[in-house]
Structure formats: structure tokens, C-alpha cells
């Protein structure tokens, strides 16, 4: 089985646009939206949800009023100001935990002299297995103020892999999170190929370099695609040179085009929406990426 993960050091470079197009071009593919902080693949693929499960992760502190002596030790130790103190007209305090501010570190639970703080596991969102016109998709939605995590990404990836296996498919395409943190590490560890999507800006280049370092640390083969290459040709050249020095293949340059936005508005991938040059460039990127995946599979076999 091949697993392609599309990531970017910097957010907003076109990961989902490419993943949706690849999904339309590839056959027998399972999709995984690992960018759960800003999940958006479902907007383009209009999934029909087949399975829905709660996602539990981390803990939230909860003060049992009956046992609280209002000593204030929790407030002294809380580093994120999550202890709320409400006073009645006589000035008597009531201590409670603001569940949105609480990061679940447990310091208040540890120090409370009365043992009056519960620490239940929190339900942070839901994850889904859906059918889309491009095949099965595993995705998730987080509650307000919840954040993506390596745990959630690992769950989404494992479910998607299971479906690839059950249906005898050969490819998993994951829309990865931006950055280089925990969710990205959980997305790319052990993948067949990481496609780093960048744009020709200084922050694009800087964050691309950080992506290289992480992929190198984790030993995952890497390729680069420069999106909207024509908005800054000299920076595109700089990026190409940087990739050459590191022996990382550049699998394509994609032009800036309003067709990309129009396709999004029409809830379609670019290659479904148009045959214009930008769609042709995306097809070429897919063919290159697919060739790398096939070559990698042969080497492994």
C-alpha cells in the first residue's frame, strides 16, 4: 500500500486543492483529512457520513462544589488562568474551572488539599467515515477551542489504512496539517511519500526548509510542488535551487489562476471543473507523484 501525505510548512499554500484534484485523478483511493484544525476537504467532496464516533482526548478539570473549601490553591497554581472565582452579594467566592481556558495539565487536581477536583476525559469532537464521489474518506470535526493532536491524526490515518486494506485498494491520500508540530509528525511518520506544497514567498521558503528538516529526521521521501509560481518568479527560482542542493525533486510548478477559486466555489476540484492550463499543470504533478509512488513501491518490494 502507498501512502501519500500532502503537507506544507506554511498554511494556505494549496494542500487541499491538490488533494481534491489527486482524488479525482487517482483510482481506488481512500482519503484522510488530517488537517483537523481547519478541515475543509469535506467542502469539496460533500461526504455522506456512514459512521460517526466521539473523539476523546485529554482531560478537563471540574471542581465539586460540595467538597471545595475555597482555599484558592488551584487558582495559585493554574498557569492559564482557568480558575473562575464568582462572588455572591456577600462576597463569598465560588471556584469553578473555565473549561475553554483549561488545558488539562492537572496541576490543580494534584495540589487540591481536599481532593475536590475531578479530572474526566474530555470529548473534543467527532470523527467520521464517509463515502464521497471520489471514494471513502475519513475525517473529523473538533469542538470549539479544541485543537488537532497527534492522537486524532493517528486515529484518522489508521482508520483510513484499515479501509484501504479491507477494500483491497492500493493508495491512501492524506491532506496533512500545516507546520511541523505534533500533528504533522503523526501524519508523515512511515508514509511512502511526502509532498510539500509551497508558494514563492519568503515565509513559504522558510517554512519549506523546516518541512525538509522534519521529513529528513523522520526518514520520509520528499517531493516539492511550487504553487502560484508566477506571482514571484525569482523566489520560485530560489526554491528550485534550494531543492536541487538538497536533492529533493520538484514535481511541478502550478500557475496562479482564478479557475482555482471558481472551482472551489463550484465545490469541485480544479481538474473536474476545467481543462485550462492550471488543471493540466496539476495533472502533471499528479503523474510525477504517482510515478514516484510506483517506483518507491517497487524498491520496497
Amino acid at each position, binding site marked *: 500500500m502507498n501512502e501519500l501525505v500532502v503537507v506544507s510548512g506554511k498554511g494556505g499554500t494549496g494542500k487541499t486543492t491538490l488533494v481534491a484534484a489527486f482524488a479525482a485523478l487517482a483510482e481506488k483511493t481512500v482519503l484522510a483529512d488530517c488537517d483537523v484544525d481547519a478541515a475543509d476537504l469535506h467542502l469539496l467532496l460533500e461526504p455522506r457520513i456512514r459512521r460517526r464516533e466521539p473523539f476523546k*482526548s*485529554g482531560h478537563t478539570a471540574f471542581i465539586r462544589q460540595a467538597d471545595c473549601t475555597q482555599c484558592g490553591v488551584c487558582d495559585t497554581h493554574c498557569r492559564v488562568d482557568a480558575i473562575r472565582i464568582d462572588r455572591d452579594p456577600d462576597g463569598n467566592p465560588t471556584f469553578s474551572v473555565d473549561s475553554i481556558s483549561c488545558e488539562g495539565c492537572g496541576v490543580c487536581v494534584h495540589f487540591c488539599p481536599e481532593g475536590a477536583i475531578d479530572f474526566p476525559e474530555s470529548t473534543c469532537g467527532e470523527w467520521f467515515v464517509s463515502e464521497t464521489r471520489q471514494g471513502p474518506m475519513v475525517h473529523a470535526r473538533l469542538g470549539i477551542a479544541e485543537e488537532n*493532536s*497527534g*492522537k*486524532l491524526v*493517528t486515529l484518522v490515518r489508521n482508520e483510513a489504512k484499515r479501509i484501504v486494506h479491507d477494500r483491497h485498494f492500493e493508495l491512501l491520500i492524506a491532506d496533512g496539517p500545516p507546520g511541523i508540530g*505534533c500533528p504533522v*509528525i*503523526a501524519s508523515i*511518520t*512511515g508514509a511512502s511519500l511526502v509532498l510539500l506544497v509551497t508558494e514563492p514567498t519568503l515565509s513559504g521558503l522558510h517554512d519549506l526548509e523546516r518541512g525538509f528538516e*522534519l*521529513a*529528513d*529526521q*523522520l*526518514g*520520509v*521521501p*520528499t517531493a516539492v510542488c511550487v504553487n502560484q509560481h508566477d506571482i514571484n518568479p525569482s523566489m520560485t527560482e530560489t526554491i528550485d535551487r534550494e531543492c536541487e542542493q*538538497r*536533492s*529533493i*525533486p520538484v514535481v511541478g510548478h502550478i500557475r496562479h489562476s482564478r479557475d482555482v477559486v471558481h472551482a472551489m466555489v463550484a465545490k469541485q476540484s480544479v481538474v473536474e471543473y476545467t481543462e485550462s492550463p492550471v488543471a493540466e499543470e496539476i495533472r502533471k504533478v499528479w503523474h510525477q507523484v504517482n510515478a514516484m509512488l510506483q517506483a518507491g513501491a517497487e524498491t520496497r518490494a
Partner: protein
Amino acid sequence: MKVAVTSTGKTLDSPVDPRFGRAKNFIVFDTETGAHEVLDNRSGVDAAHGAGPQAAQEISRSGAKCVITGRCGPKAERALQAAGIEVIPGATGTVAEMLEKFRRGELSSSAESSDPNGS
């Protein structure tokens, strides 16, 4: 000397787990006595964040001086280094196969790991 191998299963013939922090189990093998123990890493698999450093802590506690795994992330690697534990990346096959290669001195540590885009 104790050697830890990341494993998908709980026996020596289980396939290695290429992940470090979120590996299913750690099998800690004592090269002197030939005995081994299995550490269930469910808490690492379930960790929202920090699975790597937490796993490094587990390994350190087990007394292992060397870890055989696929690859580990930057924070886990620093934590293992700080604990004086050697990392041998690029593990494939079964736990027993990796231990046999280790015994024959056929495995190299992270300092000489190969370039993933190279040959």
C-alpha cells in the same frame, strides 16, 4: 545490556513498529540473560501530545541502553540522547530479526542514518 525494540505485537516474532512514540509495544531484551519483557505503550498511542518524549521516559525507566525503531521525532531523539540511550533507526522485519542483526553488530546508530531521498 538491555535493548528496546518498537513492536506491533507482544512476541519476538512480531513485526517491528516503525513509529517510536506511538509504537504499540516496546520489547526490552536483555542480551546477557536472553530474557525479555513487553511494555504496553497504550498510554503513548493515546497521548494527545508528547508521545515521543513520554516513550523516551519509558525506555529510560526500563534500563535499556539502545532503541531499535523506524525513526523517532526530534524531541524524542533529544530526550533519548540526554538519557544516554543510543538510537538505531531504519528497523524492518520482525523483532527477533532485528535483535539477531544487533547481536551480529550489523546495525548502525542514528549518526550514520541514510538520506531518505538518496539511494
